[in-house]
Structures are given as structure tokens and as C-alpha cells.
């Protein structure tokens, strides 16, 4: 395997949590729900995904369980912010705290005291016949675990949903002008609740990916700020599915590059190298953000009978 190939392969592997969490953020955001619980939901997804896989055998069950629990949190966020119109940011943070606490608590309760940390098998690579033998790109794109394909397929589906279907037309209108959508019979609350639930499910999947790909085990703090970066990525990608895909490549590229620089033996203190992804993100955003549009109703609740919410 050439060096370029192996570098790119690592980048693609590292893209997945960014893609899933940022697409989840984008999906909820396009319907107007600004979820800020990513970091917590990813931890919860990692914990649940790991524990369920361990106890019931099989990564698939773990992934489904993580998605369901994440989805429940998202549903709750959507429900209380549409039904009771509670502040999205505050609820999001409360859910972040709760999810973080529950993630570690569950691990402690289920695993308890053992002197052998339990392991789950990580996902196997699935190589796609023919395609995986293309030079360079083959191994990078078509010899990866199922979650990698899932992340790309989800991105494509979201693009199709948002821009090529009638549902997407309705969905986007809810985040742009819910009153207009409502006046035309679009169910604003239901759209928001479902997008929030599906978005949070994607975030939890992003978290579950970590133990299933990198470690085979759950450790506290394994999300390591990726949830916060996913929010950055949603802005960075202009709340559009395909731009987010490109942005994820940038974020993951930075992450892998920062380590690559160290391994290459460059004589820069490793502490500075570890800042690279964050500084680079800010630098790029200084210029890229000018073109970004955010959904007009992002983070704002809609009340049909209120005159101030339009």
C-alpha cells in the first residue's frame, strides 16, 4: 500500500463520525431545531453501542440500540421545544449533561468491577468487488467498513431528500419560515420532532462508530471534542449535505495530518501540532463563512398563535 493510499484511508475512516454527527446537526437544523447536545449524544451512542454489542453479541444490534436511544433524546428535544416551546439551547445543554452522565453511569453499572476490560470485535472491512481494485482510490473508498459506506449513503440520501423531493421542500420551509409552511398545511411540529429525532440518531451512530472502529472498547472522553467540531462543521458546510461531506474531509484530514506530522518526525512541539485542526478550522471559517447561509429559523421556536415569532 502506498503512503498516499494509507493516509487517505485513515482520513476516510476519520471522516465518518464527523459526517454522521454533522449531517444529523444539519438535518435538525434545516427544520429549525438547533441541537447542541452532540458531544453528549456521541458519548451516549458510544456507551450504548458498545454495551449492547457486548451483551447481545453483534455490532448491528449495538448500532440500532445507539440510534434508538439517540433518537429518543432528539425526539425529546423536538417535543419539548415544539410542544412547550422551551429554549432550544438550554434544553440541548441539559440533554448534553444528562447524556454525558448516563453514558458513564451505564458503563459503570453494566460492566462493574472486572480486571479484564471487555472488548467487542471491531467492524470488518467490506471490500466492494471490482471497485476496490482501482488504484489509489479503490482501497481508499471501497475497502472500508460498512459504517463508512453508510455515512456516504446517508449523505447522498439527505441531499436527495432535501433538494429532490416534496418532503424536502416542506422540511426546508419549516426551518426557513415555519409560519408560511404552517399556513400551507405543513405540519411544523411533526417535521421538527422527526428531524430532531433522526438527527440525534445520526449523532449517536457517530458516537457508536468510535468503539466499533477504533478501539473495541468504551472509554470516557473518547469523543474528545468531535461533537463540538460537528457543530462547527455544520456551519462550515453551509447546512448543505454535500458541502458537509467536503468539510468532513477537511476536518478529518486535519485530524490525521496533525498526527502524521508527528510521526514524520517534524521538529515542532507536539502541543502545537495538536492545535492544528482547531486553528485551521477557524482560519478557513474566516473566509468560507461568507458564503454560508444558515436556516433563517435556526434555533427559534414557532408558535402559531404568537404574533412575535414571524
Amino acid at each position, binding site marked *: 500500500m502506498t503512503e498516499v493510499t494509507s493516509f487517505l484511508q*485513515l482520513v476516510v475512516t476519520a471522516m465518518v463520525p464527523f459526517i454522521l454527527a454533522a449531517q444529523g446537526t444539519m438535518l435538525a437544523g434545516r427544520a429549525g431545531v438547533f441541537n447542541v447536545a452532540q458531544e453528549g449524544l456521541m458519548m451516549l451512542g458510544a456507551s450504548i453501542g458498545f454495551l449492547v454489542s457486548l451483551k447481545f453479541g453483534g455490532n448491528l444490534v449495538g448500532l440500532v440500540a445507539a440510534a434508538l436511544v439517540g433518537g429518543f433524546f432528539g425526539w425529546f428535544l423536538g417535543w419539548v421545544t415544539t410542544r412547550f416551546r422551551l429554549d432550544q439551547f438550554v434544553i440541548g445543554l441539559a440533554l448534553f449533561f444528562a447524556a454525558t452522565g448516563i453514558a458513564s453511569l451505564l458503563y459503570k453499572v453494566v460492566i462493574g468491577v472486572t480486571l479484564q476490560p471487555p472488548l467487542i470485535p471491531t467492524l470488518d472491512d467490506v471490500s466492494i468487488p471490482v471497485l476496490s481494485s482501482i488504484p489509489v482510490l479503490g482501497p481508499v473508498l471501497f475497502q472500508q467498513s460498512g459504517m463508512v459506506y453508510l455515512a456516504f449513503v446517508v449523505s447522498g440520501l439527505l441531499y436527495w431528500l432535501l433538494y429532490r423531493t416534496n418532503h424536502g421542500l416542506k422540511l426546508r420551509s419549516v426551518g426557513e419560515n415555519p409560519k408560511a409552511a404552517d399556513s400551507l398545511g405543513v405540519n411544523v411540529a411533526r417535521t421538527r420532532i422527526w428531524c430532531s429525532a433522526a438527527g440525534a440518531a445520526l449523532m449517536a451512530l457517530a458516537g457508536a462508530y468510535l468503539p466499533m472502529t477504533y478501539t473495541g472498547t468504551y*472509554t470516557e472522553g473518547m469523543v474528545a471534542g468531535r461533537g463540538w467540531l460537528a457543530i462547527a462543521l455544520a456551519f462550515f458546510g453551509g447546512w448543505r449535505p454535500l458541502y458537509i461531506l467536503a468539510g468532513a474531509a477537511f476536518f478529518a484530514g486535519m485530524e*490525521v495530518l496533525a498526527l*502524521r506530522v508527528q510521526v514524520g518526525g517534524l521538529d515542532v512541539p507536539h502541543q502545537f501540532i495538536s492545535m492544528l485542526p482547531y486553528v485551521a478550522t477557524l482560519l478557513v471559517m474566516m473566509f468560507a463563512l461568507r458564503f454560508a447561509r444558515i436556516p433563517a429559523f435556526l434555533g427559534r421556536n414557532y408558535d402559531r398563535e404568537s404574533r412575535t415569532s414571524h
Partner: protein
Amino acid sequence: GSSEPGTSTTGRAGGDAPRIAAIFSGSATDADYNALGLLALQAAEKSQGAETAHSESVPVPDAERVMKEYLADGYTVIWSHGSQYFEATSKLAKQNPDVTFIGEFDDKPKESIPNLWVLDRNFHTAFYPLGVLAAAQTKSGKIGYVGGLSLPFSYSEVHAINQALKDNGSSATVTPVWTGDFNDPTKAQQITSQLVGQGNDVIIGSLNLGMVGAFQALKGKADNVVVTAKYTDKSQFDPQHYATSAIYDFTKPLGDMLTKIEAGERNGYYPLGFKTGVSIQTPKNIDPAVAAKVEQAVTDITSGKVMVEKNLTPIK
């Protein structure tokens, strides 16, 4: 008594039995450094009849507060398991002359405190044989060292490996890399993948939980690579690439110190070494000749034939 990970307060109360409290930096279920601490504590409970308690996941800035709480609860021996607590421990020792403290350190402390036992972990000693292994094993001449934080003890490990390479006339080079956290397996996985991608065929790991990630990076790939670990037997993580581990056992050191404390010897210096708690696990997945060299190195160090220099200065 309770079986909770967070606490255990068992053993006989009252009498002259010591009441020992320990603080750990991570979860005692980590099957790693903190689990070793808990094992030693439980052994002490049995052998000394001590009453014990411990706190897990104590961040460095909180160590002083947590130890003070134990002081307030009347514990007579306080053990801080981890050299990151040494400062706070010696400070409290000076303030509380009636309580005996056990602190861990990676050097001989400059001043001696009448109620403080110092446990010197001497990590460099164990990494010399690992360096011997690497020198004999590597085909590519490239050795990767995966550390967490760039602390003096980590530097001493790299220096020891370099000394081993030199002593064995090897021209191989060591690339030290830092994940920034001893317990971040994701970073460890990514960085190990890259080390292997760069042609490093011996990976010397000096991580706690992060080690899991380092093994994951190799699973099912790169047959020619071997990995060494630290603290406990980690062969279960990746039987295919696992070579050996520098095994640490705190039961004997803790027991020795407690016995002396009970005998009234309230301070001292206790260095870890191949006779006191450290061993190199019998290597796997490598040539028996190489394994023999490693064993020889251990013997030579123990007998004093080889002096491993303790060099805590940063690596250029």
C-alpha cells in the same frame, strides 16, 4: 462493605490496624495502572488486616481536597497512586505529621519528609529490555514509541531504549510520538496506524487505556509488526501482534512499606526494580533467540552488570 467501584470500606474496624486510603487517577476497572493499585490495596487489606478506602478518577487539581477529606475522616495511611499527586502528597505530609503518606515519584526526592514514603517507579529500567527486544526484532530499523504526555518519566523510557540500541550496536532509530493523553485509544489507534504505515515494525507502547487503540490499529493487518505494552498482560487485545509487556505489581512494594510503617519506620525510599514488583513478561510472537536476549538483559540489570541511565531530560 459494598462492592461498588467507587468505594470499598471493609476489613476490621478499630484496633491498631492501619486505616489506608488511596487515590487513583482513573477508574479502578481499567485493568491497568489503577486496577493494579486496587489489587495491591485489597491484598494489603487481607494481609495487614487494614481497613481501606479509595477514590477513583481524582483529577490532579482535586487531589489535595480529596486527601484532606480522608484526613478529616481519620485515615492513618494515605497512598496517592500516581506520580502526578506527589507534590500535593508531600505538601500534605508536611502539614499532617501524624499521618503517614506514601507518594509515588520518578526520581529520588531532594528533601526527606519524616512521614513520607517515596515509591520510585524507575520506568527506565523496564524499558531497557524492551529496547533490546526492539533492536533485535526490527527489520526496517524503525521503532515507534507511543507515549501519552511528554513527561520526564516518558523521556527516561525513550532514553533507555536508545541506550539499549547503542549497547547492542543497532543503528535503528526510535520515533517518539505523543497522543496527549494516556487514556485516548482513538488517537492511539490513528497514530499507531501511521507509525506502521511509515514502516515502523516494533511499536513500544507506554500508555494506559490508550493501548487498546494501539492494538486495534494492527488487528488483522501487518503480520511483521510486534507491539509491547506496559503495566499488565495485554495479550488478549491482539494475540497476533503482542510481544510482551513490562509488568508492574504494587502488592509487594505496598506490603513492604506497610510492614515497615507498622514497625514505626515512617519514611523511606522504595525503588521499583526487577526484584521489587517489575518483570518482563515472557515474549511471544518473536524469535526465541530474541527472547533470550531480553531475558539476558533483565538478568544483567538485576546483577548490576548493565547500568541503565536514568535520564529525565527532554528528547531533542
